[in-house]
């Protein structure tokens, strides 16, 4: 379906993100998204997902910063790019939507103007053109009475409505990549399904690539082509969605799936992972997961898990596991 030599929409290599110089929040992140592909970035809260997402468009709030590695979007290097270049990429090649849609809208600016903003910036649209196009986009994302809604303010919208507006705003510059950071977490379950349906439809229509950041595995199996699992700032496993969901290799992924209600709908006790996710300031030698790992190897005295960081093992085509216990 996709030729392998095509320039990937997003390519992240060996990315390290730190607070100041010392505390590593994410380390050694490698990520690749091809055109039209949906990749889910999964992990508990505190695993560094949002920080990774913000680093992709170079909007990390200080003192967070990228200390190593590169990010490229559509072949254009983001790391070390000038502010002008970055401004031309943001909203134009890559759009982003966030967790709390209502607070993401300027409370004293009409919704339509914010939706049309990327058009004004990147497509040289006049104020009137941008507003007209914004109304069309609002209609496209399923907002009833789009013309009237375009003139309303953020506080007059429900959460689901606000997220639709944010999607319209993110798509108005016709980007190649959409970064969706927990797009449905703050919404009601019924609205969640609608928003996900909308994202899926837009992806097909626009051959959009989507980086879907979530902690909700039920979303992942419905939406994603590939899954990347993060734990405490590192990627622990990545692979095609079917492989990950059916045959997870990393103990953390297994535990995560076991925790998910989906698997246990039939009854029985819910599994839970013992312990809590370490804070970035905590230094853990070896595999970051080993203190919580149920695997026999990690439990053994003087095990390699406690001394060396695991390297990637390829267990199947496109399926990588960062675990000493994994077998190729």
């Amino acid at each position, binding site marked *: 379906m996709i030729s392998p030599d095509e320039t990937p929409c997003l390519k992240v290599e060996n990315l390290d993100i730190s607070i100041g110089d010392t505390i590593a929040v994410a380390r050694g992140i490698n990520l690749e998204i091809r055109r039209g592909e949906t990749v889910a970035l999964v992990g508990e809260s505190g695993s560094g997902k949002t920080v990774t997402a913000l680093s992709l468009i170079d909007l990390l709030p200080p003192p967070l910063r990228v200390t190593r590695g590169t990010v490229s979007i559509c072949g254009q290097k983001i790391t070390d790019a000038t502010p002008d270049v970055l401004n031309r990429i943001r909203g134009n090649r890559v759009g982003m939507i966030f967790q709390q849609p209502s*607070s993401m809208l300027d409370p004293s600016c009409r919704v339509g103007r914010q939706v049309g903003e990327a058009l004004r910036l990147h497509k040289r649209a006049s104020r009137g053109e941008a507003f007209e196009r914004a109304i069309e986009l609002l209609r496209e994302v399923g907002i009833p009475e789009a013309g009237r809604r375009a003139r309303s303010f953020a506080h007059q919208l429900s959460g689901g409505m606000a997220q639709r507006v944010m999607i319209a705003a993110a798509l108005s510059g016709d980007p190649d990549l959409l970064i969706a950071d927990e797009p449905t977490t703050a919404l009601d379950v019924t609205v969640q399904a609608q928003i996900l349906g909308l994202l899926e439809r837009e992806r097909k229509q626009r051959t959009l690539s989507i980086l879907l950041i979530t902690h909700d595995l039920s979303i992942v199996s419905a939406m994603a082509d590939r899954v990347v699992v993060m734990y405490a700032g590192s990627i622990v496993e990545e692979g095609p969605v079917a492989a990950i969901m059916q045959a997870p290799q990393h103990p953390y992924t297994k535990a995560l799936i076991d925790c998910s209600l989906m698997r246990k709908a039939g009854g029985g006790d819910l599994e839970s992972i013992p312990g809590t996710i370490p804070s970035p300031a905590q230094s853990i030698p070896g595999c970051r997961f080993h203190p919580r790992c149920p695997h026999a190897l990690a439990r053994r005295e003087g095990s390699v898990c406690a001394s060396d960081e695991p390297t990637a093992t390829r267990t199947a085509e496109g399926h990588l596991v960062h675990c000493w216990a994994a077998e190729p």
Partner: protein
Amino acid sequence: MERFLLKRAIVLVVTLTLVSFLAFLVPWLGDTDPARAIIRSRVADLALDSAAVEALRIRLGLDQPLLHQFFAWLGRVFQGDLGLSFTSRLPVADQILRAIGVSATLALSALLLALAIALPVGTLAAVHQGRRFDGIVTFIAQGFVSIPEYWLAPVLVLLFAVELGWLPSAGWSGFETLILPAAVLCLRPLAYFSQVMRASMIDVLHANYILAARSRGLGLAGALVRHGLRNGIQPVLTVFALWLAGLLGGSVVVEVIFAIPGMGRLIYSAVINNDMPMLQGSIICIVGLAIIINTAADVLYGVLNPTVTVSGDAR
């Protein structure tokens, strides 16, 4: 909106009635006999003819019960009749009206000048929060607050009027006479505005909608201009209204030093000359104006901030 204005109108009337009552009592509190004072203000002769005093007392209705007098007086006040000045013998209302125009011109010039400087400076300080520029701005602001205008004004007069001869040293006759007093008067509000603007822009900088705007391709400056200022300026406007209300009578020292015929100087000379009608009239006007200005500020606030319905409570 209508209900809000109606409520404020009621507050205005009630407060003005209360203030009028206090103002009405002023001569009694200060054991000044109004009849005596009036006669003394008209005839220089200090030996008062007690028969004349009695005659005037009856003519002015001062022999009536206090409450009766008050309502008669209140009726005249609400018709805009504040009596005659003891010193100039002209209607108090006319003089106050003219003085308020002068004070408003002076206050607005000073405050707009302060606002024009404070908005960019406060924003820049917020952007550079915790760094050297921020520290310097805060320190200068505190310096400005600590300068007495009755020291700065003479020094500036000495420099620009006496030594350099660029500007007139006092008076009220056009733009040139406005520069020095407005400059002196603007320092303190400038300090306050810039600090309020700084604090409010720090909040705005961390707001999610700025991040979202930047993710659409706006630079930091662009995002601040398009989405930051409008939200960040709102607390400053509240402070602006407070200052405007305060300066309409409060710029006494500057008006006296620069011989500007505004409210401050009017009140000052009324105090010096014990001009009771003038004092009563000014206090009523100042309080009334303060309430009107604050109401106007609340309405403007509602226009700028759509989440506030103008009854003052956010959604």
